């Protein structure tokens, strides 16, 4: 006997993600799923935003990593509530992991929750966490062709950062091609060019994000 199913393969994850989304929404928590390749500047960006916004908004962080707690320690040093998830080799976070740590965070209403995903431009895009904002960070030394190779990531982004702008003079990075790829996939997504090293461009992104909490 044939049974018609027509259900998304990720059905179980999506159901949990919807529960997370409701949980965050009820408390006016802006959950930001931070996705990028290894070393693009996820932790650096989070640290910069914490510095700029901590006096105005409560901020918490979930650090997803394959095995270490290096990034979580950097956040903890600032006195910011942080929970480490080690995926034990897994290439992404999933909705269930976020649900199990949500209670460990000092999540106040009206706050920002950064979720640093595992460094990877492929797998995290398949796993909805229940976030409100998908932030994708590309960085200059990775090259301008990333939107063409990792289409899902750039297509689904709610906001894109191009980090390490200070390195532009040293890298053959074709900005036109980068933007062409992004605009083909995602016509209206805001793109912020920043440098975590010089601080260039960060205020504009911080303002954009700060406005999401009200």
């Amino acid at each position, binding site marked *: *006997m*044939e*049974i*018609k*199913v*027509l*259900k*998304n*393969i*990720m*059905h*179980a*994850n999506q159901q949990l993600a919807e529960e997370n989304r409701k949980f965050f929404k009820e408390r006016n928590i802006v959950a930001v799923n931070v996705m990028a390749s290894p070393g693009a500047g996820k932790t650096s960006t989070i640290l910069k935003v914490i510095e700029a916004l901590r006096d105005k908004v409560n901020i918490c962080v979930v650090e997803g990593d394959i095995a270490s707690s290096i990034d979580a320690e950097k956040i903890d040093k600032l006195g910011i509530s942080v929970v480490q998830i080690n995926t034990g080799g*897994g*290439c*992404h976070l*999933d909705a269930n992991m976020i649900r199990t740590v949500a209670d460990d965070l000092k999540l106040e209403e009206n706050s920002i929750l950064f979720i640093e995903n595992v460094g*990877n431009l*492929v*797998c995290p895009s*398949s*796993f909805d966490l229940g976030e409100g904002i998908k932030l994708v960070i590309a960085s200059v030394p990775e090259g301008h062709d990333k939107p*063409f190779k990792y*289409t*899902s990531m750039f*297509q689904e982004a709610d906001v894109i950062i191009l980090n390490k702008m200070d390195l532009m003079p040293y890298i053959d990075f074709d900005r036109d091609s980068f933007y*062409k*790829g992004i*605009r*083909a*996939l995602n*016509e209206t997504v805001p793109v912020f060019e920043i440098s975590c090293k010089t601080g260039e461009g960060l205020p504009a992104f911080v303002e954009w994000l700060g406005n999401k909490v009200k």
Partner: protein
Amino acid sequence: MHEYAVTKNMLAVALEEAEKAGAKKIIEIRLVIGDLSTIIDESVQMYFDFLTEETIADGAKLVFKRVPAVFQCKACSIEFNKPAKGFDCPQCGAMGAPTGVGREFYIESIEVE
């Protein structure tokens, strides 16, 4: 890379549907997967064989229906299969955009007894 987690999710859906129908055995699972989903069929099959041990899906056959990614040209509107490199329209050279075809990721049906 994430085929293990994907396979686990997929099996959960199939088992739930089979149970609802009171089935004793799952013989076949038919999947529809767009080429933009980053999944390797052989890898799913490998995890599937391992994960289904001692379930009613043990020994079931996985059938993959692959859907090519279709883009639409923003200038001349023709639809075309995404070229291996870039998103350019083969007719006029302008940039194409994804249509949604090629992002399928669902279980179409299962065969049970």
